[in-house]
């Protein structure tokens, strides 16, 4: 049929109807994604409400700086993605290719940083369930509270004054015991039960999110190839738009994950 362009499926009457259908479908799909993560957010909420001490203690082992860096990286990638959609609308193929490429690079950077974080958790045995087996040395200490150098225990003061007993009080601890300093060591001593629950939730949430980043990268690569072949222009850019929506959702989920996991008080 002459009135049907090659991008218009036979059961739609016009491209506008087709575009709107695709967009509605994508929004519905994003709703399912939110509910998929919603289950994990619910698990997080339940355990945080019931065991706040686990979260307060365990979150110190996450590296805030790397988390913040990744947040910036993903926000930038959302920007480059949005830029790409605009370029597709305007039919500027070269800029479209560049912005998709940049988005991909930022996604790789995100996964790289995540990999560094995972690797350090792995090395220190900060894992889920029965695999939680923290390694007791300096490196395992929380990122923002390094164990202070051992300080000598102060010698017990001999009481002076009229009311003081003549018998000196016992030393509070054997001489030479490291004086605790910094949150870390304190936290170490007070480690609550079942800290592994936090790491279980951390790995599930960030792992599922990481999987979504990977899927998003695959989709962006597909869009990149199709842009390279010149499939998109002002008349037809639905796939770029839809992948963009998906990518923003992946970004948005991280924006919730970062404070919930890294910035706990």
């Amino acid at each position: 049929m002459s009135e049907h362009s090659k991008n218009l499926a036979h059961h739609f009457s016009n491209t506008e109807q087709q575009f709107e259908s695709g967009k509605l479908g994508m929004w519905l799909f994003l709703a399912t994604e939110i509910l998929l993560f919603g289950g994990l957010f619910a698990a997080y909420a339940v355990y945080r409400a019931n065991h706040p001490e686990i979260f307060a203690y365990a979150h110190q082992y996450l590296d805030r700086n790397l988390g913040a860096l990744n947040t910036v990286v993903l926000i930038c990638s959302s920007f480059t993605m949005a830029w790409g959609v605009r370029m597709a609308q305007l039919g500027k193929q070269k800029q479209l290719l560049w912005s998709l490429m940049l988005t991909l690079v930022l996604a790789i950077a995100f996964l790289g940083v995540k990999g560094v974080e995972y690797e350090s958790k792995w090395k220190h045995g900060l894992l889920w369930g029965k695999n939680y087996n923290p390694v007791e040395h300096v490196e395992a200490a929380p990122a923002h509270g390094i164990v202070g150098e051992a300080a000598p225990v102060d010698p017990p003061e001999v009481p002076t004054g009229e009311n003081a007993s003549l018998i000196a009080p016992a030393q509070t601890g054997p001489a030479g015991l490291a004086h605790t300093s910094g949150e870390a060591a304190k936290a170490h001593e007070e480690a609550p039960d079942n800290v592994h629950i936090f790491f279980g939730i951390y790995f599930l949430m960030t792992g599922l999110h990481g999987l979504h980043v990977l899927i998003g990268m695959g989709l962006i690569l597909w869009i990149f190839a199709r842009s390279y072949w010149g499939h998109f222009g002002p008349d037809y850019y639905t796939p770029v738009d839809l992948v963009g929506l998906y990518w923003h959702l992946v970004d948005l989920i991280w924006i919730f994950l970062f404070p919930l996991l890294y910035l706990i008080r």
Partner: protein
Amino acid sequence: MSNYLNHTSGWKSWVFTLDHKRIGIMYLVAILSSFLLGGIFAMLIRTELLSPGQTIMDADTYNRTFTLHGAIMIFLFIIPSIPAALGNFVLPVMLGAKDVAFPRLNLMSFWLYCFGAVFAVFSLVTKAVDTGWTFYTPYSTTTSASVISMTLGAVILGFSSIFTGLNFVVTIHKLRPKWMTFFKMPLFLWSLYATSIIQILATPVLGITLLLLIAERTMGIGIFDPGLGGDPVLYQHFFWFYSHPAVYIMILPAMGIVSELISVFSRKTIFGYRAIAYSSVAIALFGFFVWGHHMFTSGQSTLANMIFSLLTFSVSIPSAIKVFNWLATLYKGSISLAAPMLYALMFIFLFAIGGLTGLFLGTLATDVHLHDTYFVVAHFHYVMFGGTMIAFLGGLHYWWPKMFGKMYSEKLAALAAALIFVGFNMTFFTQFVMGTRGMPRRYYNYPEEFTTAHQISSIGSYIMGLGFVLIASYLVYSLMWGKKAPGNPWGAATLEWSHCPSPPPHDNFAEVPSQDTDPYDYSIVKYDEESDSYHLA
């Protein structure tokens, strides 16, 4: 004449088809095969219960048998039955559209269904699951049975279900002809719309729940394991957050079919169109807030129990609205007792029993006594079999001539309906009685005094089985030697009957019907004796 069945040929033209009608037929074959499999397990269960103690299988085998019966019937049969098989075929035609919005997604949904079914069946041939279809922790994380393959299958089937729902919502929103407003849609479409909303919003939660269960089994993540500080009741909350709305995924489309059948076979416009339409949406919404009534005895707080009990009662309001409107439609109608109508009437009767016994279980005090007894089993089967399955049979008989262009024998159909009605009530009414007297569910043994009731129940199930064999026989017979079906044998006014030949052509409509019609205005069709069919007046 060219129709969707002979439009193209060869197995590839089916396996790679994008035609919603062919996908619907493939779904129909797939779900009926699953029904056969689940039905065989049901017969084995009833046979084991013919006498106390071991009859044909040991206790472990019995556990596996009822689990497979439940899991196959729920995930492989009931959930996709009406939406994915009948809905796929009928929805676009009723809507005056050429196809669903995303035909490729539709095909993918079917393939995912098959893929998920392979996982489920794999668990059957390896070490079959013995947890019950609910996979409750901590047993499901410690048993040696192949829980992972079954739950992974359920996750994949869930995606298939999501894609069907998503497709239907977009199709209903975007592919209606201009004149067809939401309130000019047939009520079956309203119910499919409400169903799809639940499929989209509830199924992902089942996905993550079962993935957590798999993570628990494979990696020992500890979230549901009390030994590691986890909470097994959290699993129950997660599971029922999906699985309670899921029973509305099963019953809502059935109610939609009944709305069509009651009106068509009373030759009277549907009573309370808007009330029925809104009540579908109300059921879908209320359905999300009642999951806690599965945990009245799981140590949930009293306050939560009271709230969930109240909300559970509220679901009965929209359900009752539907029943009253159907009865009002029948009043002074010109009722014809064709096979689909027999099932529609049977639905009202059985669903009323199933619905009202639900109130016994929603009441906190009585639930303590009835929880986990045969009363629950009977209630569930009155709603799911007496409701959904019966409406599915009604829909199948109603749209059969449209799907295949062949008529079946009305006499045999009436006989089969009678067998199923009698068999069903024998099987499950006895279970209400046993339940109130303390017969617990999921036991392969029972005290002597229950023997008679169990035997009546088992014999009833054989009668039902006979009914199904009969249905299968005359339907297959009709495919080969049945009388050719006219375009509109029932005199319905919805587009798939009034504007579309049987079977429909590949594109459904050469031109999308442009005229503004009321789906329940029977003055637009007139009976023509010569062709034994109705035509547009």
